């Protein structure tokens, strides 16, 4: 097996995995604070991909530039979704939350089908088919840029939660709901804020993902499942775990394709999930539940 083949594929897997990680980061943030599993996560990312397509078609806006308006719109959408629809379900049984968000997902998928039809859409920016070459190693330009944006967004989110007052307040709500209420924090508002931030993460991931794959309405459920695999592997509620999980899944799919069979590469992300559930059920960076 030529070494450059393995390295090229591994690099592509890691870069794609970083974008997956950003997508899963949004899910992890939402669950870590609000304790709601967003079963419409992949569908939201699909909407972000379509938003990037529409902005490109209408204004020739590069997805990198589309990130800002789309993220702002998704922040608002996430905030309102949490405040208006999901909040009443936080104290209800988990199966109610599940059904609510699955229903939201189905509405979103069918809405996309009505709006855009079933055919694949994409953007074609100038650099999308270009690559950097370092000897025999190739770096797909679009993938490099998308991964860089994913890392930058994750770093910004980490910094927000670690160094800002609002971020610390959100962490307080996540650590101790009652304690946060006692000290006078408006927990419902911070929950909505967190859902907005998680949605904005997904929006950035979607704008980057459209540079890598074409979008169809049916992509949503597949990405929801992928996001779940990543956060479970990484650790539900762990931000670092989401990124690590994304990279591991991207890398395992890529290397499985090289060493075993390309048509079976997605099987390996699920095999990894099974291993993690068996030997480290809290996820690689998740905290063990006592």
């Amino acid at each position, binding site marked *: 097996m*030529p070494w*450059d*083949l393995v390295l*090229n*594929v591994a690099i*592509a*897997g890691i870069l*794609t995995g970083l974008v997956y990680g950003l997508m899963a980061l949004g899910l992890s943030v939402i669950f870590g604070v609000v304790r709601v599993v967003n079963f419409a996560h992949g569908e939201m990312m699909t909407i972000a991909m379509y938003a990037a397509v529409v902005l490109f078609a209408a204004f020739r806006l590069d997805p990198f530039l589309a990130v800002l308006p789309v993220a702002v719109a998704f922040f608002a959408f996430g905030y309102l979704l949490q405040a208006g629809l999901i909040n009443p379900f936080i104290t209800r049984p988990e199966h109610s939350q599940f059904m609510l968000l699955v229903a939201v997902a189905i509405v979103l998928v069918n809405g996309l089908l009505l709006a855009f*039809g*079933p*055919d*694949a859409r*994409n953007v074609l920016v100038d650099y*999308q*088919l*270009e*690559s950097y*070459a370092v000897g025999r190693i*190739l770096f*797909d330009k679009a993938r490099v840029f998308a991964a860089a944006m994913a890392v930058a967004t994750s770093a910004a989110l980490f910094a927000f939660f670690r160094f800002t007052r609002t971020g610390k307040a959100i962490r307080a709500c996540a650590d101790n709901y009652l304690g946060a209420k006692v000290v006078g924090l408006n927990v419902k508002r911070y929950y909505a804020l967190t859902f907005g931030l998680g949605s904005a993460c997904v929006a950035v991931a979607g704008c980057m993902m459209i540079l*890598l*794959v*074409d979008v169809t309405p*049916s*992509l949503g459920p597949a990405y929801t499942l992928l996001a779940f695999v990543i956060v479970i592997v990484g650790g539900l509620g762990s931000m670092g775990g989401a990124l690590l999980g994304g990279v591991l899944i991207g890398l395992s*799919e*890529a290397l499985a*394709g*090289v060493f075993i*069979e*390309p*048509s079976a*590469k*997605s099987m390996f992300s699920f095999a990894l999930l099974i291993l993690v559930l068996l030997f480290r059920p809290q996820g690689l960076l998740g905290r063990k539940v006592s």
Partner: protein
Amino acid sequence: MTQRINRRQFNQAAAGLAAAAAFAPFGIVRAQAAKLKVGVLLPRSGVQGFIGQSCQKGADLAPGVIKEMLGVDIELMNADTESNVDTARTRAERLIQEGAHVLVGPFDSGAAVAIAQVAEQRGVPFVINIAAAPPITKQGYKFVFRNFQTAIDIVRNGLDLIGDLFRASNVAPRTAVFMHVNDTFGQAMAKGIGAILPGRTQLPFKLVDTISYDPAAKDLTVEISKARASNPDFLLLVCRLNDAILLRREMVKQRWNPMGIISPGSPGMYEEQYFKTLGKLSEYSISNVPWYNPKAELTAVVEKAFLKQNPKDKLVFHALNVGFTFEAILIAADAFKRARSTEPKTLAEAIRQTNIAKKMMLGAPIKFSAEGQVEGIGSACVQNLGGIPTVVLPQGAATAKPVFPAPYYKKA
């Protein structure tokens, strides 16, 4: 006390029964159908949506053309299989329940297998427009008919045309990597190539690797990396439309420029969407596929009808899809005209006796074997030149010379 029926009462009852049988609505429809109801099953959405919509154009123009040709009235009952085998099965059942006299479709081999089972169980004729998996007409079915090459025929004709291409170009590539979509069709083609290629000793190349991929894959980076790493002279490709586009883009990203991309017989690279999406990158791709005869009288008639319904489109981008779909409905209508009945067994028998010489697609007249398969369907070497799929071989049907190797070729 026993009641006895007298002769008058008995005669009245018998007359009443006879009248009921004669005037039973079902009986009238079956015996005196003025119109043939054709259930058209095609993947108009999902991964094969583009191609299914292309096939649908052939179905849509068929009633008008066939009315003029044969004087037969056709009613289309369209159903979307959604590129899904289970949906295809369900839609077929529904069409039969809604009164379809014959089923036509479905482009995809997996769906064809499912619909064939339904058609056979329900005893309704099914004329396959496009589906290559050989086992479909090897099941001993009495109601299933196919006017399309099997994967073996496609591969045989396709490989022979590759040899003709190399001779015409005076080039002898030594190695090829074979990539194929991993579905019913792709696997059937792969089996066919595995069986036939070793015997084609006149072909100068050998396969250095075989790579299969998921037809619904969104990213083919790994697959192209593997193919490129084996350093072949050209790419032998069995694909569908969306993956053909993904593959070509990935080849550009990974700076892989082989002598050419040659399909021994698969959809994708001659489809309009391939040209629209890829632009100049679509040039020089080669597909050895069943194709229409540009010089046939029926082709001109169909083209006129096509342009009337699709004034902004070109038949050449839908040649295979429109041609075979139209011919499938033509077969059904021709049989209906001869049988003068929509009774399933009668109609099926009439289809079995089909002999249509005045056809659109290259090859021998449409005649079914005992297994329900048309033999002798021809293929052409179709190369993308100037944004149009152009016949470059056989020479008798060619409108341009082949370009091989492609100008972008860079020896590694």
